[in-house]
């Protein structure tokens, strides 16, 4: 049943034990996001050094999909360059069917090489919930674009 695919163990684990949960004292970049449809809230703080993500903290509340997606994102992006983060964001959005194009996606296993994030593939069959999974990523993009605008 597709519900079992949506609520995979890894999703529930991230929902119940969110990684890098909290706030940073002096973030270099920050954004708040919310999904008015569901009432999901998220805040992302980023510490950046020389074009890399040094640290990240996520806070907020919402459904299992939005919170698990945020936790998996936080877990994944520390140590990555901003280019890698942008590429990852596009891959996740393609996985969620938000962005067009299959470049880099295995048709049989679109989430391959995405690690825990592959578990978000189950959301594709629940169009109403795609926004929940996407919230963290769109908020991350916002934080980085605000930072980019400020710092060039």
């Amino acid at each position, binding site marked *: *049943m597709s519900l079992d695919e949506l609520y995979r163990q890894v999703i529930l684990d991230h929902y119940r034990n969110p990684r890098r949960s909290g706030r940073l004292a002096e973030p270099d970049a920050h954004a708040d996001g919310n999904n008015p449809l*569901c009432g999901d809230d998220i805040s992302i703080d980023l510490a950046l050094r020389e074009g890399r993500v040094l640290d990240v903290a996520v806070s907020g509340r919402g459904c299992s999909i939005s919170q698990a997606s945020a936790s998996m994102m936080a877990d994944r992006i520390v140590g990555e360059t901003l280019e890698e983060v942008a590429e990852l964001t596009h891959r996740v959005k393609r996985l969620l069917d938000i962005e067009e194009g299959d470049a880099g996606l295995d048709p049989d296993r679109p989430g391959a090489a995405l690690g825990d994030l592959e578990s978000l593939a189950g959301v594709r069959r629940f169009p109403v919930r795609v926004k929940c999974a996407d919230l963290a990523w769109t908020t991350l993009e916002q934080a980085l674009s605000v930072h980019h605008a400020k710092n060039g």
Partner: protein
Amino acid sequence: MTDLSHLRADFPILAREVNGKPLVYLDSAATTQKPVQVLDALDDYYRMHNANVHRGAHTLAAEATEMYEDARRKVAAFVNAASPQEIVFTRGTTSGINAIAYGWGLYHLRPGDRIALTTMEHHANVVPWQLITRHTGAELVYLPLTDDYLVDVSRIDETIDDRVKVVAFSGMSNVLGTIGPLTEAVAAAKTVGAITVIDAAQLVPHTPTDVQAIGADFLVFSAHKMLGPTGIGALWGRRERLEEMEPAEGGGEMIRDVQLHTSTWADVPHKFEAGTPPIAQAVGFGAAVDYLTAVGMPRIREHEKELTRYALDRLSEIPDLKMYGPKDTSLRGGAVSFTLADIHPHDLATILDQHGVAVRAGHHCAKPLMRILDVPATARASFYLYNVVEEIDTLVVGLHDARRLFGVA
């Protein structure tokens, strides 16, 4: 148990499947499904009688006007208004409350005056009054709830003092099901000379309502929550209140005379119905009222009390499920809000949807109440005349599946 299951055949949508399962529609507090009698009335109006109302000399215009005004008579009779002229057609409950806030509140409230609400109000009965406080300098005060999810009537005397000019409250909460303090609040308002406004969006569809017996000044409701179309509702106002109320909207249809710098208004209720009204919707509203009257509102109320009793009993058997609302079905309607363990209500709604069960999840346009309940959201099952106990059994099966999926021990 009151058996109304034969009525289900009148509602075509109830025969469809959702996600491969028979639809179990438990979201009537959001909007209700429509019987063929209402669909046919809309269809017949558009096919055979469509014209603009109140200003045509031709036959179709006369027929449309007669059908529109006939709907007003039916709605008036349904809530026992003293006259059809006391029924103003609006776009719905929200626009009705705004019409009162902007048509009465704006002209009668002064700095230092108070508007008393309860903490279980829908945003539709909070935000218009917040806007009016900005214009008038009046302030809001709130009647709190008891631990049993009832409006705390013991606090009425201290809250509704002579600074209070408007007492506006829900006749039945869309979240808790709680029936508002109709008798107590109306009596207290009369004592201090305040007007009373009842948000009856959930009350009128589900209980026999007699506006003269309640004795309030205004009572508003929506057609789509009582088997009728969207886009229309009714504002009942006591005649003298409607006379002293100003129109919140100006335009065609609502005037007696227009000159370059000034105008005079048409008589009540037409002075509140600017522009071409929702004519087909009014006709459908009338057909909905006919349907409910034929079934009988006391019977509908009894049926929903039984469904609610059954739901409260069945849901209370589910471990880790918490319900928000009174336990006594004589004090409440059939909107049953709940949370289950640490499963977010939106996840519950997704899981139930896969079982064909439509429930609402979210803040239900009652964010102040969500904060008081200390939850970001709840799931809500709500019932109407076409629901049967077997559907509540399906809901329970879905909730057990949610427990399994989330590994709730």
